[in-house]
């Protein structure tokens, strides 16, 4: 039996209200043994400074990625990871993290590649939990290993590769990076590491909708009506569109993927995780500079 969904009024307007939980809901249900909370942060040490009691740590660099190939872990690797974290196939997995849930959304997207049935995101993430003065602990959660099944990774549904993006040119693309990265003025995020793109600009035809447009001041998602106005209104997306989103390495675009796919309910949204660090280094792919798509 899955845990009950959060009946918060704001969520009921979203296409899939069951994908989000509030801090109130989590505080009430976090002791349930069918639920595992996982923190996924940009900073690998943040969990050690204090986390939601009982939460396990899930690191994108060292755990979700294959250590050699630029790719995610395979089915066996994912099964091992989930087992080590004490997550079963029927566990309700609630993810949260720093930076407006970028990495939590990214981890949720990676878990989607393996079809984990019950994934939810904590609306507002780590920042909101802390802002509300809720309990934190430095005790590392230790859960009993499980027997998570080996599920082959499905790269065909929510993931896009470079050649697919090339074939997709002319169809809806959303670039969620900062305006400076989009125009080609910057090769990386302001104040962020230069992660090695040789060319600046954007994929021709991609519309610029920075990820942060979807987030409110308190790191929660904007309401459905606000999101409709941004993505449907300003960006002109239609629910039936085949949409590809990208950023620099696929983390900020996971946030937008979550918004389009789960909150607005667009069925065909793929995240191009190669993103600009692949496109901006590729030979002979088309690039556009400046403010126009």
């Amino acid at each position, binding site marked *: 039996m899955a845990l009950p969904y959060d009946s918060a009024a704001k969520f009921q307007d979203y296409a899939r209200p069951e994908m989000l939980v509030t801090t109130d809901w989590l505080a009430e249900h976090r002791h349930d043994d069918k639920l595992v909370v996982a923190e996924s942060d940009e*900073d690998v*040490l943040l969990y050690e400074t204090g986390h939601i009691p009982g939460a396990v740590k899930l690191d994108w660099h060292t755990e979700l990625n294959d250590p050699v190939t630029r790719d995610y872990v395979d089915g066996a690797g994912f099964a091992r990871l989930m087992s080590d974290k004490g997550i079963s196939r029927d566990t309700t997995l609630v993810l949260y993290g*720093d930076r407006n849930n970028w990495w939590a959304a990214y981890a949720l997207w990676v878990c989607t590649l393996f079809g984990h049935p019950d994934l939810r995101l904590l609306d507002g993430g780590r920042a909101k939990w802390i802002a509300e003065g809720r309990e934190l602990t430095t005790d590392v959660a230790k859960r009993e290993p499980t027997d998570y099944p080996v599920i082959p990774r499905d790269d065909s549904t929510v993931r896009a590769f470079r050649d697919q993006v090339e074939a997709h040119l002319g169809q809806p693309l959303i670039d969620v990076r900062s305006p400076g990265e989009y125009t080609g003025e910057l090769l990386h995020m302001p104040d962020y*590491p230069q992660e090695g793109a040789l060319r600046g600009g954007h994929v021709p035809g991609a519309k610029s909708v920075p990820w942060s447009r979807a987030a409110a001041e308190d790191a929660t998602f904007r309401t459905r009506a606000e999101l409709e106005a941004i993505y449907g209104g300003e960006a002109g997306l239609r629910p039936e569109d085949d949409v590809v989103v990208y950023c620099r390495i696929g983390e900020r675009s996971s946030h937008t993927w979550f918004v389009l796919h789960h909150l607005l309910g667009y069925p065909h949204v793929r995240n191009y995780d190669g993103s600009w660090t692949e496109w901006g280094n590729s030979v002979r792919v088309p690039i556009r500079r400046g403010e126009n798509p």
Partner: protein
Amino acid sequence: MTTGILHPRLQEIADDFVAIPDADRLQLLLEFAQDLPPLPAQYADHRDLLEPVPECQTPLFLAVDVDEDGRVHLFFDAPQESPTTRGFAGILHAGLDGLDAAEVLDTPGEFSSQLGLQDLVSPLRLRGMAAMLARIKRQVLDKAA
């Protein structure tokens, strides 16, 4: 500048890291983050004197002074919610602050790879520490001249 020998103070830090189990290394890094001294007033009030290190995953700013005796003093500013970056700064502060300019310049550029943190922190994140060291060395060269 990847040649040179590790100063005994940095060597001791590196030895401490590799001597303990994986699970304790992040705790040790966190201790260095917590021990990083706050920015003194002369820099806290003049942040324009700090050099940004954009290679770090979250913004870090640093300043380097070389005093009349040729000793190097390091100052770092990084947010509390960036403990990894603070930890890297804390290690460099504990290992290099107060050394002679020549000793700082002798520090191997790949020092960050000797802490046994690659698998725990990831090589990409460790690049931030190498970048801090490179910028410290460049400022020492400028200021010791």
